[in-house]
């Protein structure tokens, strides 16, 4: 029905409980292809759960999650996962492999055709890590890990890019590279869903903003509706409002 070719990510009354705790309650949401969604909310609002559900790392306890129209719990889930690039709190990298070996491994896992070695080198240059390509990841700084993880998440040109606080650990130069990469993803038509606590920095690259509070969608609207201060105030208000949800 609503799943046209133009929908990259869809939540159909999706809920996730952890035992008795409701992390996300009955969320219904569609993100159009090529759209950029910024996700805001206080701590524990369910932002990371939402993104992990979208990546298939967490299974919903009710409802469905569809990526490119494919149910992430269905038999074709592998095809949907191939279309996703996810960057979470952890790097998912092999400590004892080199930076280049890590990228090549993930390229193979994602079924990237062609010369994975050349691809890895291109991405290492893009994130400014060509010099350390042959060094094992063990001993990399937090910022280097984050950059490499970003390359790991993007090198297979995912149609749906999911980023959970991607600026974590990045220095100003790293953040500049991240911004450039995000622009590049948008230019090639990728869909973007990003959690950020720095609304003012992320807002210019967002089409819509989703505000979560206590596992519920508190607000969803065009990014241009408010300025950064306005959205931040909305999040703060949601955080203090006595459970309109409960």
């Amino acid at each position, binding site marked *: 029905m609503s799943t046209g070719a133009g929908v990259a990510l869809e939540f159909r009354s999706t809920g996730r409980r*952890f035992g008795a705790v409701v992390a996300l309650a009955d969320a219904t949401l569609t993100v159009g292809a090529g759209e950029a969604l910024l996700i805001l909310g206080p701590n524990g609002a369910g932002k990371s759960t939402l993104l992990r559900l979208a990546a298939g790392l967490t299974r919903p306890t009710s409802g469905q999650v569809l990526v490119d129209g494919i149910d992430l719990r269905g038999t074709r889930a592998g095809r949907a996962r191939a279309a996703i690039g996810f960057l979470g709190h952890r790097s998912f990298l092999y400590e004892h492999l080199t930076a280049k070996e890590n990228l090549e491994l993930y390229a193979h896992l994602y079924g990237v055709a062609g010369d994975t070695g050349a691809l890895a080198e291109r991405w290492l240059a893009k994130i400014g890590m060509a010099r350390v390509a042959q060094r094992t990841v063990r001993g990399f700084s937090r910022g280097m890990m984050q950059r490499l993880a970003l390359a790991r998440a993007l090198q297979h040109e995912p149609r749906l890019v999911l980023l959970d606080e991607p600026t974590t650990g990045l220095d100003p130069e790293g953040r500049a590279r991240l911004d450039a990469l995000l622009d590049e993803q948008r230019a090639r038509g990728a869909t973007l869903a990003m959690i950020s606590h720095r609304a003012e920095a992320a807002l210019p690259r967002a089409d819509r903003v989703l505000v979560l509070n206590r596992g519920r969608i508190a607000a969803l609207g065009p990014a241009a509706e408010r300025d950064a201060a306005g959205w931040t105030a909305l999040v703060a208000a949601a*955080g203090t409002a006595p459970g309109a949800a409960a």
Partner: protein
Amino acid sequence: MSERTSSALGRPAAIACGALFLAGALLLLWGAMLYAPTEKVMGDVQRIFYFHVPSAANAMLGFVLAGVAGLAYLATRRSGWDEIGRAAVETGTLWATIVLVTGPIWARSAWGTWWTWEPRLTTSLITWLIFLGAMLVRKVSHNAEQSARLASVIAIVGVLNLPVVYLSVHWWRGNHPMIFKRGAEGALAPEMWTAFVAGMIGVTLMHVALLYAAWRTAQLEDAVSARERLAEHEENGR
């Protein structure tokens, strides 16, 4: 959740449970102690049979239920299934423990030894260890969802491996003459059969009562910790 009295069962259900349990216990004891005749060779100790074997059957019942609930939980991730599974592993382990305690007592009297590597006892011991593991997994994790998931996996792996455990232990010990044939088994006296059936029904009734109580307790446990988490959450929100 509506207001509950400060008990899992509530008074009427508690009384019903108690009555069911008592009826089962009386049925078992009546059949075993009063109705059944004394066995000629082994004497009174043979009466343990009316308790021991139904306990083994009920242990198996508990574990199979735990396995089914585990499968259902993994498929649906609904904590209701986990509550059933949790209760069933607990009661199953109780009956398995009874099997392991009454077995040697019987063996001591009938065969003069506390333990034999007799197939049924050995199988019970292994089964018991498997399901203690399933209970232990829960104790180890502080994350309720995780322990439910993992205990489900163990219960399924355990239950599906039981037939193999059973067969291999039997083949392993199979070449040895077994004394476990109580007399000629086909020749069990009719009164003994009646007492055995009474024991089977009695122990199962007791099991149902305990299972229900344990299930409601598990439900209450989940409800309470949910409300505690919510209260905590609200405190932090302020």
